[in-house]
């Protein structure tokens, strides 16, 4: 394995003992003493309404109530990519559950009781609950001020409409492509909203002390971005970035839900109203469902032109996203999906409209997969149908059109090194593609499904990562980074990278979750970019430390610089086999010279990585010209299912996922991403579904009614296949994989159902009930 000592090895997780013994502290585990205040939020019961009056006199009378805060105190807009949100609703509420006011009290019970005494008068308006209604000519505008909102330069809102962003991709000449086709097939697929369901709900504690320093402890994927957004939102109070500090303890699951800023702004803002006392906001499971980001629903209308031999000549995708009441983060999901909605295929003529539509449902936002799961359900289902209609094997069809290294991407750039064909072949072999199994039980139908997937990190072109690395007296080290361990094993992989460069074993390296005062900048832990981006920064920091070490040993001891190298925690020399200087002898205290003076001193490494080649600037009418994506990670997946012909219930004997991760840094951790991601993805197609009533209220905000998988629901066998076509700019060749493992789950199921029963289901989820009804209808 290319001579690596720690890279490519299943190093034991550095955070394992803490997490398995209860030592890991999550935000709700932190103690703030008897001065801690508790906030309870008064929420809108209406999906769309004008706030007439808020009367909280009675609440203020309750003993133990410290303060009631409303939108009046914070009339500022904020947001990640577009400033369309408020800390508390101003004159309008736009979704059921939106924060209208807060009661701050000495105990949670008092806060809750007093919150019940706050009276809000509303003028109820007719809500806009689906994209079709929102896009009508005479639709009620959810954000009449849209034209004035500040946003990133790659968004194109349409003022005086409910369209918050319109991403157009035009590659080649789609009409010409359709004319060249022997057949044109079109169809529509729909995907509902989904919830992340981290087992830990959101929570944050804010403290604005008497020196006007604001500290926020939060369950967070984005400590620095949160600090920045707090600074932006609270700038009128005169706070500078240096005065704001975010401390991120262990996080009980993220999946995108704890990225950006959602409820954390409440802790930050409320703290400024009760100077000197920490104030805690902690979401209940119900609030976790309706007032954090949700995965957006989409209606996907597609048209594909093909030749008789299966060559795709043109693709048209029209994606209408139900982005909810505020799109400050969700509009970038729409953007990213729009740029990539061709899937990993070589298609010369592409026409994509990806439309971000405001509705009066909870705000959409980032969820593992970032729009790709949503469009790939339709695309990969449709391609299966196309192959079938042409009489071509679905795997062969995909192989024929699969994107290869150097092919032209939708926005004009070139595809990075890609092992997609290798993934296709290995996955097909593993699932025994082409061999049909028949169940001994006549009630059971067996089917196989196949799909390709791809995803690129969606991030600003200058999203950057940094790392500090500090040696200790015994030669152990601490690495300071600000990307987050959210379960994926990030801390362990950073330790492995530094270990490889410095020849110090990972168990002698401590990497912890950050405090923005101490740890250097990181954009966010999203986009499957941190193994790549932060990994590059850590590698550079380790190299920086190594160079200092070799410099000092060379200059102090007269060893030829070019002969020196690190091995087994020592400096060794290729020209002097007897030379071996342990790191612990000098990395803090330096090297003593003959005269008793010292050379060197504490070794501190510094590393920074920003993808300097990326650019989000392109022609708004075509998306041509920029380089919005740093790289794509590609792969293939296949499944075998057994369907009960009477009940529609599906069991899964085997599922396979092959991904080109560039380079495997830790095989067991990577396998963990496949197993966990696949099960999470399968749940979105088999059981999960957010249901809203005609007034926009979420009907299933709990684990009884919103079913996530249990230990009984895991497939019998999940096979991971890793292909390594190195990413030239990745640490040791690695690229991101964290989100990708859930992306193909829906289409492999849909295609397997079609294979088993001959029934094509075009809307998610595909529950047993839906299958049983479809069987009855067919």
């Amino acid at each position, binding site marked *: *394995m290319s001579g690596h*000592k*720690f890279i*490519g*090895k*299943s*190093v*034991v997780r550095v955070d*394992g*003992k*803490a*997490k*398995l*013994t*209860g030592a*890991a*502290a*999550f935000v*709700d*585990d932190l*103690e703030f003493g008897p001065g801690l205040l508790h906030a309870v939020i008064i929420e809108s019961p209406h999906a769309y309404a004008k706030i007439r009056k808020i009367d909280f006199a009675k609440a203020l009378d309750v003993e133990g109530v410290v303060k009631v805060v409303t939108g009046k105190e914070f009339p500022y807009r904020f947001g990640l990519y577009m400033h369309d949100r408020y800390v508390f609703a101003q004159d309008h509420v736009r979704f059921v559950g939106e924060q209208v006011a807060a009661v701050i009290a000495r105990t949670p019970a008092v806060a809750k009781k007093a919150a019940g005494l706050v009276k809000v008068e509303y003028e109820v308006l007719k809500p806009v609950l689906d994209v079709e209604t929102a896009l009508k000519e005479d639709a009620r505008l959810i954000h009449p001020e849209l034209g004035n909102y500040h946003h990133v330069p790659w968004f194109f809102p349409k003022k005086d409409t409910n369209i918050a962003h319109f991403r157009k991709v035009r590659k080649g000449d789609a009409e010409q492509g359709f004319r060249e086709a022997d057949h044109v097939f079109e169809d529509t697929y729909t995907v509902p909203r989904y919830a*992340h*369901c*981290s*087992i*830990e*709900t959101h929570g944050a504690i804010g403290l604005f002390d008497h020196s006007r320093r604001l500290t926020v402890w939060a369950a967070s994927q984005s400590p620095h971005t949160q600090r920045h957004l707090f600074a932006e939102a609270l700038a009128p109070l005169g706070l500078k970035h240096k005065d704001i500090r975010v401390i991120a303890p*262990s*996080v*009980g*699951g*993220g*999946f995108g839900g704890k990225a950006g800023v959602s409820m954390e702004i409440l802790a930050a803002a409320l703290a400024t109203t009760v100077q000197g006392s920490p104030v805690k906001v902690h979401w*209940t*499971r119900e609030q976790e469902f309706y007032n954090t980001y949700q995965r957006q629903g989409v209606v996907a209308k597609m048209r594909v032109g093909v030749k008789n031999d299966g060559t795709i000549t043109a693709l048209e995708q029209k994606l209408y996203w139900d982005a909810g009441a505020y799109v400050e983060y969700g509009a970038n999901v729409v953007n990213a999906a729009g740029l990539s909605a061709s899937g990993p295929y070589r298609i010369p003529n592409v026409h994509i409209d990806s439309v971000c539509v405001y509705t009066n449902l909870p705000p959409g936002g980032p969820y593992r997969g970032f729009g790709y799961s949503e469009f790939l359900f339709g695309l990969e289902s449709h391609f299966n149908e196309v192959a079938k209609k042409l009489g071509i094997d679905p795997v062969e069809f995909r192989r024929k059109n699969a994107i290869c290294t150097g092919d032209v991407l939708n926005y004009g750039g070139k595809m990075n090194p890609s092992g997609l064909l290798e993934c296709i072949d290995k996955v097909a072999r593993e699932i025994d593609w082409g061999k049909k199994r028949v169940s001994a039980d006549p009630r059971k139908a067996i089917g196989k499904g196949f799909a390709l997937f791809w995803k690129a990190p969606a991030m600003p072109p200058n999203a950057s990562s940094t790392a500090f690395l500090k040696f200790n007296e015994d030669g152990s080290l601490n690495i300071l980074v600000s990307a987050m361990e*959210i*379960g*994926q*094993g990030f801390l362990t992989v950073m330790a492995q990278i530094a270990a490889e460069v410095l020849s110090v074993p*990972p168990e002698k390296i401590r990497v912890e979750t950050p405090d923005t005062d101490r740890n250097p900048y990181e954009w966010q832990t999203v986009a499957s970019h941190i193994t790549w981006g932060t990994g590059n920064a850590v590698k550079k920091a380790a190299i920086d430390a190594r160079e200092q070490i070799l410099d000092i040993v060379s200059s102090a001891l007269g060893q030829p610089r070019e002969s020196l190298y690190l091995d087994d925690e020592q400096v060794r020399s290729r020209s002097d086999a007897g030379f071996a200087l342990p790191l612990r002898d000098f990395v803090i205290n330096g090297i003593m010279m003959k005269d008793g003076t010292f050379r060197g001193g504490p070794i501190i490494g510094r590393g920074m990585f920003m993808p300097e080649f990326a650019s989000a600037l392109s022609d708004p009418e075509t998306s041509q010209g920029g380089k919005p994506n740093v790289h794509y990670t590609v792969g293939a997946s296949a499944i075998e299912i057994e369907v009960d012909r009477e009940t529609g219930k599906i069991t899964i004997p085997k599922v396979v996922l092959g991904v080109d991760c560039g380079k495997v840094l830790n095989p*067991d*951790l990577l*396998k*963990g991403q496949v*197993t*966990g991601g*696949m*099960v*999470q993805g399968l749940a979105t197609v088999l059981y999960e579904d957010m249901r809203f009533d005609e007034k926009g209220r979420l009907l299933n905000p*709990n*684990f*009884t009614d919103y079913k*996530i*998988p*249990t*230990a*009984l*629901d*895991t497939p019998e066998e*999940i096979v991971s296949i890793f292909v390594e076509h190195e990413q030239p700019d990745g640490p040791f060749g690695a690229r991101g994989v964290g989100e990708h493992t859930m992306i193909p789950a829906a289409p492999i199921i849909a295609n397997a159902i079609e294979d088993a029963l001959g029934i094509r289901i075009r809307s998610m989820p595909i529950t047993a009930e839906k299958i049983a009804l479809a069987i009855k209808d067919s």
Partner: protein
Amino acid sequence: MKKRIRFVLNGEKRAIDVAPQETLLEALRDGLGVKSPKCGCDRGDCGTCTVMIDGRTVRSCLVLGVEVDGAVVTTLEGVMENGELSPLQQAFLDRNAFQCGFCAPGMIMSATELLARNEQPTREEVQEGLAGNLCRCTGYSPIIDAVLETAGVVPKGGRDERP
């Protein structure tokens, strides 16, 4: 009106005053500073607050504090053996049977009880036994394997390419 209760917590005699409506989870976390049981749903759906009363697992969010008067309560803090990981915890570590770690305390409590009652469980019995503990990260299979490994039902290992 608070009531004084006495019980054995992780081998130590404890006395604490609890309000009648206070849950065991609140008493442990807020009253005694025992933080391994977590609150994930507050209605018995997720299992992350799982602890043992007299050797049987319960959802501590569904049990009142007053109910444990005179009982023996065990949390994850009491599962370690002389400061060392229990064989089950070790198997969780070896097999990456956790990711974010939030469900791990409850999951380990349920698995500990399962193995105490059934030394040689089948895969299905393990799945059944853990079905009340939700995990959103792992996809469960490494957890199931860790429990089976501890029982000696599957061989030790699971770690490819150790350094």
